[in-house]
């Protein structure tokens, strides 16, 4: 290598993304382009994927600064549906608050809130059919709540108690609810994306009318499964709605580490030949309208859609996380898209369909509802208090039938227990 011949070249520099604000920094969101509500065109649901490209770089918004619904994306929901949407979001938040406290009180080992992101699960759940299969990540508890899944069963799972349908096998919040068409949550990020595509392909193979919807965070789009899912969905025109909840943060890593400095997450759809929409994720009406657009498209054999929900993770990643260590506390208060619950409440008030008094009363009622569910679940035990499931259940469901080596190990577990507590009987556990 002739070094001299290269001396006129600048040294290469590695770019390592860095978020704009760190703890203690004053927050200035003026770099964010927030277009006016109602200004985004709504293409026909049967349009070519490339026609959605402008929407991938824009932000679909319905609720304006005056709290009125405007523009072609206004889903024109009746006040009853709007109140239901508001109530479900508020219920999700009340649930989160109580479960967070439950973790702090030692009733469970772990919890994850979705504060600020309630619209990204409640509105899609309302826009989808109740038997469309959803493949959520761990931050879409709102879907179960919207689908009327018993809250006590959710809490039983969180507490890993004797009524936990998952028999204490799963980390709290990793729900599975087939009856609610809610796919088993995995700890491994993005794996549900190709699975959702496969489910949607199966539905198409069988000539069914149900579609699939999948969720992940913007951080998880960096996983290979995201690419596989997008490729397969495009190749087979699978009836699936992809949701990317861009809440700006993947634990301590800002969205720049998933590539957000260069383009939007919605825009990735275009390269795969998939329709893309970028929506104000704190505008429940925009989220609802986008989901309905995508669901209608999928149901009409128009193929997949990727929806980026531009939102903000208002709280820590989990009960094991302290966001004050890596981001400015002002980010949440300054977030320009506000709070989804407050915005929908203001909209209903602007319509003359809601009052602050009604809201306060609702919040009290929901807190009581969650409290009652938590009490009912606690009657089944909380984590670590007593033995909640017979030892043999530890070995069941690894396979459909117990092979000899698991039978042996099951006997061993019971033997160990008897050595420790000679009076113990398995049926008492």
């Amino acid at each position, binding site marked *: 290598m002739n070094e001299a011949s290269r001396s006129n070249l600048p040294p290469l520099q590695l770019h390592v993304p860095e978020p704009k604000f760190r703890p203690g920094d004053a927050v200035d969101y003026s770099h964010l382009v927030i277009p006016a509500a109602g200004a985004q065109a709504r293409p026909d649901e049967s349009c070519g994927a490339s026609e959605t490209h402008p929407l991938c770089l824009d932000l679909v918004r319905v609720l304006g600064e005056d709290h009125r619904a405007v523009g072609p994306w206004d889903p024109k929901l009746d006040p009853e549906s709007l109140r239901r949407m508001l109530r479900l979001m508020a219920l999700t938040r009340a649930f989160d608050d109580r479960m967070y406290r439950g973790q702090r009180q030692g009733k469970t080992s772990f919890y994850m809130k979705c504060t600020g992101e309630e619209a990204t699960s409640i509105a899609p759940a309302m826009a989808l059919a109740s038997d469309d*299969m959803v*493949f959520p990540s761990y931050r879409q508890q709102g879907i179960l709540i919207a689908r009327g899944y018993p809250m006590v069963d959710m809490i039983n799972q969180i507490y890993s108690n004797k009524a936990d*349908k*998952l*028999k204490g*096998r*799963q980390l709290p919040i*990793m729900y*599975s*609810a*087939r009856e609610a068409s809610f*796919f*088993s949550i*995995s*700890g*491994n990020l993005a*794996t549900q*994306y*190709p*699975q*959702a*595509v*496969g*489910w*949607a*392909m*199966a*539905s*198409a*193979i*069988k000539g069914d009318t149900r579609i*699939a919807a999948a969720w992940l965070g913007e951080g998880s789009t960096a996983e*290979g*499964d995201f*690419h*596989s*899912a997008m*490729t*397969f969905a495009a*190749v087979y025109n699978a009836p699936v709605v992809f949701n990317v909840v861009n809440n700006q943060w993947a634990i301590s890593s800002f969205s720049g580490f998933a590539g957000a400095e260069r383009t939007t997450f919605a825009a990735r759809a275009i390269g795969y030949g998939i329709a893309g929409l970028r929506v104000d994720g704190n505008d429940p009406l925009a989220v609802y309208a986008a989901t309905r657009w995508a669901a209608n498209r999928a149901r009409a054999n128009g193929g997949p859609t990727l929806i980026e929900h531009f939102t903000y993770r208002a709280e820590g990643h989990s009960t094991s996380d302290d966001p004050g260590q890596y981001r400015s506390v002002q980010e949440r208060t300054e977030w320009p898209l506000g709070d989804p619950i407050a915005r929908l409440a203001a909209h209903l008030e602007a319509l003359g369909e809601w009052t602050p008094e009604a809201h306060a009363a609702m919040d009290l009622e929901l807190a009581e509802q969650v409290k009652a569910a938590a009490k009912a679940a606690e009657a089944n035990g909380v984590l670590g208090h007593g033995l909640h499931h017979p030892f043999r259940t530890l070995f069941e*469901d*690894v*396979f*459909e039938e117990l*092979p*000899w*080596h698991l039978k042996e190990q099951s006997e061993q577990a019971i033997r160990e227990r008897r050595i420790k507590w000679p009076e113990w009987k398995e049926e008492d556990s």
Partner: protein
Amino acid sequence: MSETASMKKLNMIEAINDALDVMMARDSNIVVMGEDVGYFGGVFRATAGLQKKYGRTRVFDTPISECGIIGVAVGMGAYGLRPVPEIQFADYIYPGLDQLVSEAARLRYRSAGEFTAPITVRSPFGGGIFGGQTHSQSPEALFTHVSGIKTVIPATPHDAKGLLIAAIEDNDPVIFFEPKRIYNGPFNGYYDKPVEPWSRHKDGAVPEGYYRIPLGKARVVREGEAMTVLAYGTMVHVAEAVLAEKGVDAEIIDLRTLVPLDIETIKASIEKTGKCMIVHEATRTGGFGAELSALVQERCFYHLEAPIERVTGFDTPYPHSLEWAYFPGPVRIGEAVDRLLKA
């Protein structure tokens, strides 16, 4: 299986193709997918003719994405289909490993039976074909180590069909490794001599129609008294040939299923012979042979008259030009046999 069924001579590829055909005709929820499996019929011809017969929505080509193939299959299984995805070479199964280990294997357990992954992943495996590093590997130990997956490896066309049918019908995820060295005939390890085709071998006779060989049940290839040989896939035939040549009255067991393992057949044999030789192509350290050896030692200790012998591939990546130095062939097996005989 029905003894009255009429038999036909098939090689292992044809037997696998026949199993897929039989099962697709019986169950409309079975779909076959993978790279080049559709119109072309597979790079080894295992899926030849199936797309024409069953249509493109049941037998189709996929993008080149093992993670996608397995992930999509898991989702199809959750819907209620019984997918039979193909991974073109076992050496290329690794991009799909997260979906197999974290998802397919765990789905029943983590959902307490709400969702299952009744998928059968077929994949050609093993060496002896000058396949070099990435067309020769035997990664079975990566799967036998995973709770919730069954691992099946046939050694004959007859077993390939019966085991594949059982695997497809099984409600658990199954890894079905096909020893590609014996697709056309039972390779005996003497690479400098011609291979006998399956059409002239007794196990090349395959019953027509539906039959199944239960998973978890080994096959005693040959009864004997001098020692017990535990093998699977290609190595069943290599071991059989070497022992026959040496005139050793060995009991040879073709394991067929590694998980769940037929421990009773193994135990009964070693209690009779007192000696055990384990043969596999895969690398030695952490290979399935280690598990077999430990099980035999734990369960047959007082019957053992000699240390357990493990005859395996070396702990190197699979080489190209030095293939026959790597492959656990007649010389390596012969040495182990002599040690056991002297013990």
